[in-house]
């Protein structure tokens, strides 16, 4: 069937038929293919991008490229000062932030409460002790200040409050969780860590889609260290930001070779992803593939109908072609070329729109979902695979109706008999 002569003749016939067909019909079909392409790539890309946005946010704004954290059976990272020296010596490291982390409670209405029977407005929180400059260099924390100001290195008894701990930003309740009411920058709250109470002033509110930030309280590291009496300078977490194009796996392995994994967990941002996120990414990918399959079916039905109508209305001319001796395969191939043309044009326009406009635009302006800044994930490999699938489906969908019409009796076709 696919002899070079038949292919050449098929191309000859297809080219002339496309050239002579109605411009608006051609544009319409190409548009259908273009939107099918978008359906295949963009819908699934946004679904995956929804989670990818959340994953990216945790990566960029919390764990950074590599994170060292305390072992499950330890309260902190032993020998932290030595580990920090190793990190400082690595040329691949751009910045790092060492954090102290303790659980504690915050109380807002302790000044206005008039009796012991009145319920205290208490909220539990993770309290981070950070070097404000180092933290900002690694995670850009200051970007998320929505009220008040970011911490300065010399700040004393001042904290940044995660927005979920402020009733004003936490507009929903769930059992076991309460937020502080009537607090804002300048408000004093009482902080209790390991039975040590300290009155601190809220300096700013941190609002982010990374839960660790929105549910945390941040203060200068030296102060938290003194509260928890951590005189050995052992920290709980170290987030390491690497220079551009450095593979986090490589740095993780270097750190492990230095024996750090014996006293702490050393993970890349991917290793540190919670399992439910990995499961959700898999689930969303599956869902995206399912939606893509529906898109493919829609595309194939569209092309089937288009080619079928085209072939039926041209039945007489197909009969004439067969009558004067044009090989049936050449005629079938001409319809394959036509289907290919529509899918190809739709895909090319789709590629231009996707990589020239949609993806860069959505990266610059992520969709503001409640739990993530959704981006469009469209890796070139995956897109090419989808284009390949679209082409194959379209070609088959174009070939079948053409074959149905072409196989009809030659004379019946010429004379327009059914």
């Amino acid at each position, binding site marked *: 069937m696919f002899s070079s*002569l038949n292919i*050449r*003749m098929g191309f*000859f016939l297809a080219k*002339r*038929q496309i*050239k*002579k*067909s109605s411009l608006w019909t051609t544009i319409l079909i190409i548009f259908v293919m273009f939107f099918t392409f978008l359906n295949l790539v963009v819908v699934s890309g946004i679904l995956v991008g929804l989670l990818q946005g959340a994953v990216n946010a945790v990566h960029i704004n919390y764990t950074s490229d590599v994170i060292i954290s305390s072992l499950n059976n330890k309260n902190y990272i032993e020998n932290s000062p030595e580990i920090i020296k190793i990190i400082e010596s690595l040329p691949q490291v751009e910045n790092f932030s060492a954090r102290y982390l303790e659980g504690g409670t915050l109380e807002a209405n302790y000044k206005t409460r008039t009796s012991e029977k009145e319920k205290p407005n208490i909220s539990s929180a993770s309290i981070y002790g950070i070097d404000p400059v180092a933290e900002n260099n690694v995670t850009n924390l200051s970007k998320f200040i929505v009220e008040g100001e970011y911490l300065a290195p010399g700040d004393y008894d001042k904290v940044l409050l995660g927005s979920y701990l402020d009733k004003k930003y936490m507009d929903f309740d769930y059992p076991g969780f309460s937020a502080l009411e009537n607090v804002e920058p300048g408000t004093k709250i009482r902080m209790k860590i390991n039975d040590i109470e300290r009155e601190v002033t809220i300096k700013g509110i941190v609002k982010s889609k990374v839960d660790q930030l929105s549910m945390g309280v941040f203060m200068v590291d030296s102060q938290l260290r003194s509260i928890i009496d951590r005189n050995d300078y052992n920290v709980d977490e170290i987030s390491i930001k690497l220079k551009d194009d450095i593979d986090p796996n490589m740095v993780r392995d270097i750190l492990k070779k230095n024996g750090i994994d014996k006293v702490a967990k050393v993970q890349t941002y991917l290793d540190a992803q919670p399992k439910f996120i990995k499961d959700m990414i898999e689930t969303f990918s599956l869902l995206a593939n399912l939606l893509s399959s529906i898109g493919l079916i829609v595309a194939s039905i569209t092309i089937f109908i288009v080619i079928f109508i085209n072939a039926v209305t041209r039945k007489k*001319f197909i009969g*004439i*072609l*067969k*009558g*004067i*001796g*044009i*090989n*049936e395969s*050449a005629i079938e191939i001409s319809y394959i070329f036509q289907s290919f043309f529509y899918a190809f044009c739709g895909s090319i326009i789709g590629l231009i729109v996707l990589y020239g406009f949609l993806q860069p635009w959505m990266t610059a302006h992520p969709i503001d979902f409640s739990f993530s800044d959704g981006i469009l994930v469209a890796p070139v490999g995956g897109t090419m695979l989808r284009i390949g699938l679209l082409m194959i489906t379209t070609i088959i969908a174009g070939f079948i109706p053409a074959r149905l019409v072409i196989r009809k*009796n*030659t*004379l019946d076709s*010429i004379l327009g008999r059914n």
Partner: protein
Amino acid sequence: MIKVKNLIKTFLDGEKETKVLKGIDLEVENGEFVAIMGRSGAGKSTFLYQMSLLDEPTGGEIKIDDIDVLALSTSERTSFRLSKLGYVFQDYALLPEMTALENVALPLLMQNFPEKEAYEKAVEHLTLVGLGERLNNLPSQLSGGEQQRVSIARAIAHNPKILFADEPTANLDNESSKMIMEIFKELHKNGQTIIMVTHEPEYSKFAQKIIKIDDGLIIDIVFN
């Protein structure tokens, strides 16, 4: 040479069987110009379609140059039509999206002629039928007579063994019809075998032999 023996064609319409050809025998020598005549519904076009391999008879035998053409497979028949036969239809049967030149070159390209040669031959034959100046016109830009001449150029460009024509003048005015018949006369003079269905006695006179058909049988053969 064409040899037809006991050719039968039956159409089925539900359970009703209509026998259109009831056992026709005919021989046509190479270089002959044969006209088939008869009243409407006599079976003359059906007879032409069977001989020209556009349709399959219900029974009988057709041999062209001693080849049992009814024994050929579908693709062999297509190939046979392409290389050995030429067709002129009543309604011209040109492809509307192709120019006159492309319509004529198409069967040549299918015969694997190099593109240049195919187009040269197409130009040559279009010039022969007087359309050397209308090569790049689409069928819709040509008159009926001109379209029929393109159709003739397409039918003869590959030097077919037999040229079949189904009422080639039926849709044309007198002047165009005469022009078409003059072309046929000229082709015949150069040795082309022509089998033509017509209902116009005036044009049947161009043929050497007139076969008269009625009710699915040859009822008379007249030599001019």
